[in-house]
């Protein structure tokens, strides 16, 4: 592996997705959430999810944009990424047509530009054909479009390969990738196992899910295999669907896979679940990932993305702080 460490410039940051509970539970409004991120030194990068933070999204009013600009100016945070969504199945009876999806994405990319975000995170459900049609707009507005590679996708999955091939053909620097570290996990996070137990789900249902999660098979097949087992064995269907999220939220692939996409990596989702007293996350091997990204010459932000808010009411700010401390330590060691 060529050592491109001298090229690496990695900045930390936060996605407000990590603070979903604080927002959802009405503890902080949007602006106060941003101020608190800055106050606690959890920038400099700031990422937001359009459909979470902005009531009028995919549109953004002039008033919102002006207030947001003033807020960023006030806090000194640096805009890293706007997470946009594909939403192909708003109509559950038929997916969006290509024209509808292009228009839907156009609105969101324009909003990203209006707000000053240099990168927009998009999702695989958009399709390479749609994103190809958006490349000229991305270039015109100077907003890079990053495909988030999220569990259970790997870089070799046909869905991702379709984008890789299109990117190669189109050759635009405004088309790239956003690795989500949850797609290169090493274990199901303990907080999810604890949650399932708290929900009263049997050890048998949990253990079977974990066994299937660790089996060598196509990741997308795992969920179906588990749900078939639960159905064949008369398990509660709602509980089965709850446990089955483990197949969509975290999956395994060699960490080295990220190196193949490094030249086109425009942003990173530093997914994590809990940094323990030893400075490690049991489910994501940060001690290996951070040096890999340094060696790979990554230049950009890593948004701390705490997803444990789905299964706990722990303090999101504290989680992110510990994550940043771990990342700073690992970056210093890799330097």
């Amino acid at each position, binding site marked *: 592996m060529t050592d491109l460490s001298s090229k690496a410039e990695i900045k930390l940051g936060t996605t407000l997705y990590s603070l979903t509970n604080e927002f959802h539970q009405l503890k902080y409004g949007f602006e106060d959430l941003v101020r608190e991120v800055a106050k606690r030194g959890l920038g400099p990068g700031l990422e937001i999810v359009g459909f979470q933070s902005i009531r009028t999204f995919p549109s953004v009013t002039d008033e919102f944009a002006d207030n947001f600009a003033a807020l960023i100016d006030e806090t000194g945070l640096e805009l890293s990424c706007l997470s946009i969504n594909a*939403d192909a199945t708003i109509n559950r009876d038929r997916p969006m047509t290509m024209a509808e999806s292009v228009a839907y994405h156009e609105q969101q990319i324009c909003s990203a530009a209006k707000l000053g975000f240099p990168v927009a995170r998009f999702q695989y459900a958009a399709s390479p054909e749609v994103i190809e049609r958006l490349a000229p707009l991305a270039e015109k507005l100077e907003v890079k479009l990053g495909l988030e590679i999220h569990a259970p996708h790997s870089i070799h999955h046909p869905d991702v390969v379709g984008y890789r091939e299109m990117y190669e053909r189109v050759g635009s620097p405004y088309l790239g990738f956003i690795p989500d570290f949850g797609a290169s996990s090493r274990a199901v996070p303990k907080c999810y196992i604890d949650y399932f137990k708290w929900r009263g789900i049997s050890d048998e249902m949990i253990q079977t899910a974990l066994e299937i999660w660790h089996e060598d098979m196509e990741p997308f097949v795992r969920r179906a295999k588990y749900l078939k087992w639960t159905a064949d064995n008369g398990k509660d269907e709602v509980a089965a669907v709850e446990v089955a999220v483990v197949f969509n939220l975290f999956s395994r692939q060699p960490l080295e896979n990220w190196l193949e996409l490094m030249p086109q990596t425009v942003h990173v989702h530093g997914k994590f679940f809990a940094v323990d007293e030893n400075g490690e996350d049991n489910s994501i091997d940060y001690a290996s990932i951070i040096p890999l990204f340094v060696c790979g010459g990554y230049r950009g932000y890593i948004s701390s993305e705490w997803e444990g808010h789905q299964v706990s009411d722990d303090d999101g700010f504290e989680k992110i702080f510990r994550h940043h401390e771990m990342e700073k330590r690992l970056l210093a060691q890799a330097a």
Partner: protein
Amino acid sequence: MMIDKVIVPNSLRARPGEATIDLRLPWYRTLPLSTVEVEAVKVDGAPIDADRLTFDLNGQSWNVSDMRGLTGENWFVTDIATLHIAGLQLQQGTTHDVEVLVNLYPPYILGMRRAVRWTRSMEAN
């Protein structure tokens, strides 16, 4: 977490000819109502037929069976919806177990369903 927030605490109300509860969207982002399904409601273990359930949001009301077509109606993540249970006459001050099963079909994850089932014991006020 969200599962235990789906039924707003202390939101059970006894009104003439109906009872109501308040609901929160058990998701991290706004979703169109076409992707939200109130599959089942039980009060004290007794299932309530869907034709008795009306969902209020954004100043409008729909029967829960009609929500699948609401592609243009968004549930903003911090907003409260009200569920009306027609024909359920409760006495104020009495305590009841209210169970809901809400399914979410996030429109950006093909084939995904999140099932949120929760029971809250509340005093009718």
